[in-house]
């Protein structure tokens, strides 16, 4: 019950099957990493979980703490506790970071709940300080004119503010310089805990030195073809994916 369970998920985009019977179990309290070649379906998995309309689930199930996720709308999934850090965060002109996160928090409140603006800003600033984001960013439009690294930090800021149960981070490390990588990794580590499951999609073992995963999965052609502990990431980094594909072809 306390896990995000993906069971035999098959997903297609514009008639083309991208994920093929993919299964994955992410229990609360754990961090799993997903690696895989370009185009293997990592982002597709993230977006299908979030409920993007372009991604059609033709079979399989996703249970979040026992609840059938696929029955819910995008926003309902989010409010139920699913968060996705986008590989390519979207610009929302004219909407400040502060208003954006406030709107997201308010969407989670009941009608009668009051919103404590002072407490909100206190928390927001604390999280921004932790992630090394200049406080001036509260007034900037969401992702507009942000550098690649700034966008990624802001994704993690949102995650920290929204306190989701399950997080899917899609290449949050790409575009980060070495120092930023450490800061963002520390931000993610800060959120690790008994009540949260985190799925980290990445191409680089480097990130996993900082966010040490409990499990590593390799996805090829829309399927998880190999799982292991953190040493698998090191092996992938050294040897690439060909040996795994060869193992597959040999039917190992």
């Amino acid at each position, binding site marked *: 019950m306390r896990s995000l369970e993906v069971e035999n998920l098959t997903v297609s985009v514009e008639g083309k099957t991208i994920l093929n019977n993919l299964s994955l179990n992410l229990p609360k309290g754990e961090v799993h990493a997903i690696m895989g070649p370009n185009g293997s379906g990592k982002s597709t998995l993230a977006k299908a979980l979030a409920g993007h309309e372009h991604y059609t689930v033709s079979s399989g199930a996703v249970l979040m703490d026992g609840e059938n996720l696929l029955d819910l709308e995008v926003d309902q999934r989010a409010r139920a506790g699913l968060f996705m850090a986008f590989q390519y965060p979207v610009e929302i002109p004219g909407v400040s970071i502060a208003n954006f996160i406030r709107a997201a928090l308010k969407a989670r409140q009941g*009608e009668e709940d009051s919103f404590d603006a002072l407490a909100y800003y206190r928390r927001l600033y604390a999280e921004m300080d932790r992630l090394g984001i200049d406080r001036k960013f509260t007034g900037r439009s969401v992702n507009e004119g942000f550098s690649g690294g700034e966008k990624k930090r802001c994704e993690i800021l949102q995650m920290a503010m929204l306190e989701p149960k399950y997080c899917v981070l899609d290449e949050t490390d790409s575009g980060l310089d070495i120092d930023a990588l450490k800061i963002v990794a520390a931000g993610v580590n800060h959120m690790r805990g008994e009540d949260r499951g985190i799925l980290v999609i990445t191409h680089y073992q480097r990130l996993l030195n900082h966010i040490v995963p409990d499990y590593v999965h390799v996805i090829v052609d829309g399927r998880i073809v190999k799982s292991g502990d953190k040493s698998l990431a090191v092996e992938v980094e050294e040897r690439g994916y060909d040996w795994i594909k060869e193992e597959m072809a040999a039917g190992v």
Partner: protein
Amino acid sequence: MKNENAIDIDREKGNFHYDTTYEFDAGIGLNERVVNYIADVKEEDDWVRAFRLKALDIFKGKPLPTHWATKDLENIHFDKFRYYLSKGQQPSRTWDEVPDDVKETFERLGIPEQERAFLAGVEAQFDSEAAYSRMKEDLAKDGVIFVGSTEGLKRHPEIFRKFFAKVIPVADNKFSALNSAVFSGGSFIYVPPGVKVKQPLQAYFRINAESFGQFERTLIIADEGAEVTYMEGCTAPKFETTTLHSAVVELVALKGAKIQYITVQNWSSNVFNLVTKRARAEEEAEVKWIDCNIGSRLTMKYPGVILKGRRARGEVLSIALAGDGQHQDTGAKMIHAADETTSNIIAKSISVGEGRSTYRGQVHIPRRLRGCRNNTECDALLINANSRTDTYPAITVRGNHNSVQHEASVSKVSAEQIFYLMQRGMSEGEAMSLAVNGFVNDLVKQFPMEYSVELKRLIDLEMEGSVG
């Protein structure tokens, strides 16, 4: 979902009506008898009666402007409206004296509350006449006049007549002629030289009756160096039949004066809203129109400034939201008539569903002038694939001693933006509202706080209602 109830109540905020008995009713249709009836009831001077009757002739003689405007104008049946309805002419000075049904109407709209919170004066018009009119006493001591037009015409004819129908001649267009024939209500404001009215004066125009036409006439004069902010709000219940609202608003800013005129309109979707608004700005005077048009079936409104004196400044900040089936045909006019005059137009429109927004501008700078500047920006946001926007900027600048800048853009709220916002937990309606509020944000920031809050609320309601 969570907010739906609150929104239903709020969406309907203006949509209620009381069965009211009227003391005075000019009947249905438009003719000399109706015009005379209005003049009789108001016990007007002969010159006003003659003015009205002449205007009626002009109205009859003018064709509808369908050669450039929408054919929907042909669906206005002038013989089906009621042109004058009132419970009497004397506006009350306290809310307690206002008849119960009328008082309740304005209480539901929150007017007495706003008056207490931040206004220097309020006029509340119910159908044809002001039911309530009051201004803070210290303003009266300074010589500020703020009354309904009916009262203004009676008690201050010397000022009224001098400026009346001078900025907008009767024959300016078919609807200014119509208003001139049957006008009733609206505000008359005079601010003496050097007096700066700190808090806004507000008028609220409420249509309560069915098949009714409201024709308020507002005249605001800021004498030399005076300053005033005026705000108008309007609502009507949603009837099966059409309602007509056709106002004329004239502003005169004398030397060095500043007038800011703010409209936050929220008409129901059966209202034809055809309004002529224009200002004259003398030397170093400044006029700013802030015009927010939400609702109505068709709005045609192009606030303008005639920049008559050297270094006069004119500005129009306009936001139009065309919901499904609505047409917002709005814009601005800047007529430069003196050297070193500057004007600025920023117009933002949002079209939702089959909503249509049209920007019409007119900027005129004749050859003989020097050092004039205009900046025009119009941005359109389309929410759905079948939403529509058109832009007719019409900028005529002669000679090379003047400068203009013109920018226009059309953008869409993308599916990826909505997905991003919804992934953060917002409903589709909330996501739309946030994106739309973002689009108008840089403009709204220039509005006084109270009105930007009100506008945001109206946009939220409109957008929440637009998604299924």
